[in-house]
């Protein structure tokens, strides 16, 4: 690694102030900082600093995503070939089939997204922020496998430019950029984002069924998937969302490292379970989703993935601890509510999170007002 460091140090003067490629400094330092933690020393404030930095936080989230990603790759192959009669493929064959389908999506997502991030960094003359490391991984994982790559690319452009950079970049965005990408794709390319063909690879071409459990239920049909299969993730769906087990492993990583808020996760599950129980109690003869038991609601669709990886995005979530309870709870409530009573959307977690992203500052406002009022009350007491 000393060799690499030497090479970087050799070209560095070209990018320093007054250097030949000064303009491209953010790009160079973006790459440099991805390889090495820089040797910048403190020059004001505290002289010593904790080892943690934003990149470490972001990478931890990416690592937490990996179990769900790898399972998703295998499941792409499994969902396809389990419907092809007579095929008996090994675990590795199923996995590599899925990996070959998935890798181009990841490459496009990172390529396009980071390209824009670097361009904005150069244009604005600030450092490249690490936020996209997570977003870039999330976007392909919440898309259907058959999505054309160009659509993915357009969605990424929309998410990064309108969802994030328009607000000032990482840390300033109101909505979760990955969900912006998904919402954009859903409304622009509805045919590729919903229906009974898109959730299993090449379902349309090979005449397979590619319907999700929620989609089936919304159409008033029965499903035969067992609760165990739902938990393990042996069902069609967006690439990363199906396996609750793998998502729970990711959640364990995020909670152990305290990178994501347990308050949001817990309160969202409570909110969703309560609404599920409520509808179970009401029951319905026409809508099967009323009768779909509350714990199954927690296992299917994008609920688990959304709650663990997207609702907990610290930038777009509520920022106060009390606010996080309210924010998470309402996401849980709206996810299941939209799912059950909205006929046009079989899944509600994306809309619920986006909605609460918008309301998060309002929630925080009222929580912080409590603190302000305490202060004003003290002042009044003093004057009295």
């Amino acid at each position: 690694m000393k060799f690499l460091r030497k090479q970087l140090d050799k070209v560095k003067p070209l990018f320093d102030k007054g250097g030949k490629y000064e303009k491209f400094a953010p790009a160079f330092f973006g790459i440099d900082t991805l390889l090495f933690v820089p040797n910048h020393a403190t020059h004001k404030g505290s002289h010593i600093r904790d080892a943690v930095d934003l990149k470490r936080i972001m990478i931890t989230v990416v690592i937490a995503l990996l179990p769900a990603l790898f399972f998703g790759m295998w499941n792409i192959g499994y969902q396809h070939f389990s419907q092809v009669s007579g095929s008996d493929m090994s675990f590795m064959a199923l996995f590599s089939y899925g990996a070959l389908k998935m890798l181009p999506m990841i490459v496009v997502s990172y390529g396009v997204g980071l390209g824009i991030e670097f361009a904005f960094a150069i244009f604005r003359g600030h450092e490249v922020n690490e936020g996209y490391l997570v977003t870039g991984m999330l976007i392909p994982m919440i898309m259907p496998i058959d999505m054309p790559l160009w659509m993915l690319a357009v969605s990424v452009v929309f998410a990064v430019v309108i969802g994030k950079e328009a607000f000032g970049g990482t840390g300033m965005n109101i909505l979760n950029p990955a969900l912006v990408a998904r919402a954009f794709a859903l409304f622009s390319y509805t045919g590729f984002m919903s229906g009974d063909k898109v959730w299993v690879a090449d379902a349309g071409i090979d005449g397979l069924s590619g319907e999700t459990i929620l989609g089936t239920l919304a159409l008033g049909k029965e499903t035969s998937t067992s609760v165990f299969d739902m938990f393990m993730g042996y069902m069609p769906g967006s690439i990363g969302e199906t396996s609750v087990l793998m998502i729970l492993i990711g959640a364990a990583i995020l909670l152990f490292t305290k990178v994501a808020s347990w308050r949001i996760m817990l309160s969202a599950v409570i909110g969703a379970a309560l609404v599920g129980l409520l509808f179970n109690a009401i029951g319905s003869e026409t809508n099967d989703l009323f009768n779909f038991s509350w714990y199954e609601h927690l296992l299917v669709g994008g609920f688990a993935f959304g709650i663990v990886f997207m609702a907990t995005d610290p930038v777009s979530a509520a920022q106060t601890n009390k606010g996080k309870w309210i924010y998470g709870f309402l996401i849980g409530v709206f996810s299941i509510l939209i799912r059950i009573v909205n006929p046009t959307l079989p899944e509600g977690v994306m809309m619920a999170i986006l909605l609460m992203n918008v309301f998060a500052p309002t929630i925080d406002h009222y929580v912080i007002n409590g603190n302000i009022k305490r202060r004003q009350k003290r002042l009044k007491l003093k004057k009295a």
Partner: protein
Amino acid sequence: MSTDIKIKKGLTIKLQGAASNDIETSTRSKIFTIYPTDFHGITPKLTVKVGAKLLAGDVLFYAKSNEELKFTSPVSGELTGIIRGAKRKILALTIKADAKDTYKDFGKKTPSNLTDVQIKEALLECGAWAFINQRPYDTLANPKDTPKAIFVSGFDTAPLAANTKITLQGKEDAFQVGMDALSKLTEGKIHLSVQGNSFLNTIKGVSIHNITGKHPAGNVGVQISKINPINSGDRVWTINAQDVAIIGNLFLTGNFDTTRIIALAGSEVSNPKYYQAKPGTSIADFTKDKLASDNVRIINGNPLTGKSIKMEGSLGFYNNEVTVLPEGGAYRFMGWLPFVGNHIHSVSRTSFSFLASKKEYVLNTLLNGEERAFVETGAMEKVMPIDVYPMQLLKATLVGDIDRMEKLGIYEVAPEDFALIDYTSSSKIEAQDIIRKGLDLMISEVG
């Protein structure tokens, strides 16, 4: 009378190189250097010319904004130089010190027989007033004010901090006399915070608070917020424990003797212990033959809040501690991976060093990352025992929204209360700097 207060939030950072209990007398510098920049917000007006003969306690300069605020020479000798910077700003004064100090006689006095006005005069004429700090704004106290209370923290929880049991050794009587004098200056009480058993528990005429908990439990700002929080329009004064004894000594002897017991600590000090020295002592003399390596950062104060000082510099007016840490460090390949580089202290669970919180660490001055936008939430609150929302207050301060800063509690905080946020921030936010600028804005806009 004493009350118990427990501080739950915070973080105690253990560093290698804590001072042992031995006290030595530091080498006396031939040249003492006084930095007016030690006194925040003061523009100095000189009263002496180069070549002037000085006694210890003679006025060197006063504040342009308030002539009552005088700053005096810690030693007797001859003023040899006035170092100026851009726009002829006075950066430093150098004094060639006599081998032994001759003190200006301010006369022995008994504070209990004096009125508040007489005490103020006594403190102002010798320069001891500069020890008294004011909250809000964390600046020198204004002699025209009458504070609602005075706070003295009898212990320090900062990393490698000087222990008051050592620094106040043999000064018990002076401390009591100092407290007697200060008690005349407030309409309210003097609050003295103590941790554990010490003579401080027996000080009379003050209300004593037994405080336990992690750093910043020893920060006077935290204690104020738990005992008697500052409201808009309030003034409270704070003063360091050692300086109370210096004031007491002034009344007992009539001499303004600023000698302190100062901890020389840190991993780069070969034999960390305490030294008797006066502010203005040159750092080169103070650290001579005591450092373990060359590439070091010397800090006037503790590693969280102190000011970096060069070898040519001198001991600051306020510090009880000089810390020496290794300067800088190397690039770390892929060092941002979680659970890599566990030798660096971290409270984040993304490093195994959280398992070894009792270990004494050697920390260098690396930022361990780069400054980024505010992203992580909830982390700042964990190290902020004062009842404010630190992230929201920082954001309001960054945009200079005075109304909102007021509402969110800017009056209750000082930069040092945000030091742990500097330390723990994953976005490497310079919180102390932001708060200092915010307070300066408040001074100029609200006053």
